[in-house]
């Protein structure tokens, strides 16, 4: 028992230990990457975990929110119960040994809703809009979840793997004049 504890203290970063203690089964996996710590969390535990990271563990900076479409990655799909998307939160702290932390949450194609984290980081506003625009992830509680990069009339979400590189004729049709009319 004591021997095992010594080993975990040597190898596992403190953040992972704290998250394991607090969320237990809520964590699907955790790992150390080259640039920091990666935590995969269940969707129900996402907001509490991010809140805990910000308020108690001083991850005060939200670097980025994005998503990954795992349609073509069979092993990732199998690992996370065939959840198509992975929403990724990059966090940064100015204290502690592991400044960079990545939180991932698997999102199913049938239920694309994820809680918005604007209440924690104001900067999440545009990042969530971008993720919505590019992947179609819906952020519950977002005050203005509209497209930010593509025109409002645009159909589809371009960074999804099933979206063709040359589009579906949007660039040939040019019916985006209305917004300036």
């Amino acid at each position, binding site marked *: 028992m004591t021997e095992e504890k010594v080993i975990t203290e040597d190898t596992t970063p403190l953040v992972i230990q704290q998250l394991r203690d607090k969320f237990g089964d809520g964590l699907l996996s955790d790992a150390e990457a080259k640039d920091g710590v990666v935590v995969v969390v269940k969707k129900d535990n996402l907001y509490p975990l991010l809140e805990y990271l910000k308020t108690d563990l001083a991850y005060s900076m939200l670097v980025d929110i994005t998503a990954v479409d795992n349609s073509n990655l069979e092993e990732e799909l199998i690992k996370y119960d065939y959840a198509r998307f992975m929403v990724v939160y990059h966090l940064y702290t100015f204290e502690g040994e592991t400044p960079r932390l990545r939180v991932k949450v698997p999102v199913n194609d049938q239920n694309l809703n994820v809680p918005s984290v604007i209440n924690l980081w104001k900067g999440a506003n545009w990042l969530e809009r971008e993720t919505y625009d590019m992947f179609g992830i819906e952020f519950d509680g977002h005050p203005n979840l509209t497209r930010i*990069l*593509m*025109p409002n009339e645009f159909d589809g979400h*371009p960074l999804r793997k099933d*979206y*063709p*590189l*040359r*589009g*579906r004729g*949007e*660039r040939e049709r*040019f019916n*985006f*004049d209305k*917004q*300036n009319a």
Partner: protein
Amino acid sequence: MGLDNNNIQSGVSTDQSDGNIITTTIDKVVNWGRKNSLWPMPFGTACCAIEMMATLASKYDLSRFGSEAIRFSPRQSDLLIVSGRISIKMMPVLKRIYDQMPDPKWVISMGACASCGGVFDTYTLIQGVDQFLPVDVYIPGCPPRPEDLIDAVMQVQRQIQKGELPKGVEAAP
């Protein structure tokens, strides 16, 4: 008094004792003035704009050709330089800027992206601004060197001096 069609000095007479007289037509004088005072409206969206800035700066010095008065208001300019890639979201903005420019107006499509989409054959990028703007001069290159932009401006000047109408006027009903 022989009329030289290619020159502003259409005829020179030294018959008069009180000095030289130059004869020409009003169109040629107007075109001559117009070509040497082109006021460009820069529409820089990418790396071509960096080359455009270099063209305007002291080393390449576009003011030698009378085009140094860059106006960021389309209402005061008569030469639109589209330098960079144009997305479908940017297209209405560019069209509106072109529409605000007073006639006569010329358009230079600078670089591969503005002319044909360049390497960006993607869902969001317009494959050439000539799909919605009447382009007078295209510049190849990725990005073109400042000499290429100077050459394009001189080509516009030659068109003006010849009395050719800009593409936008020809296209208008």
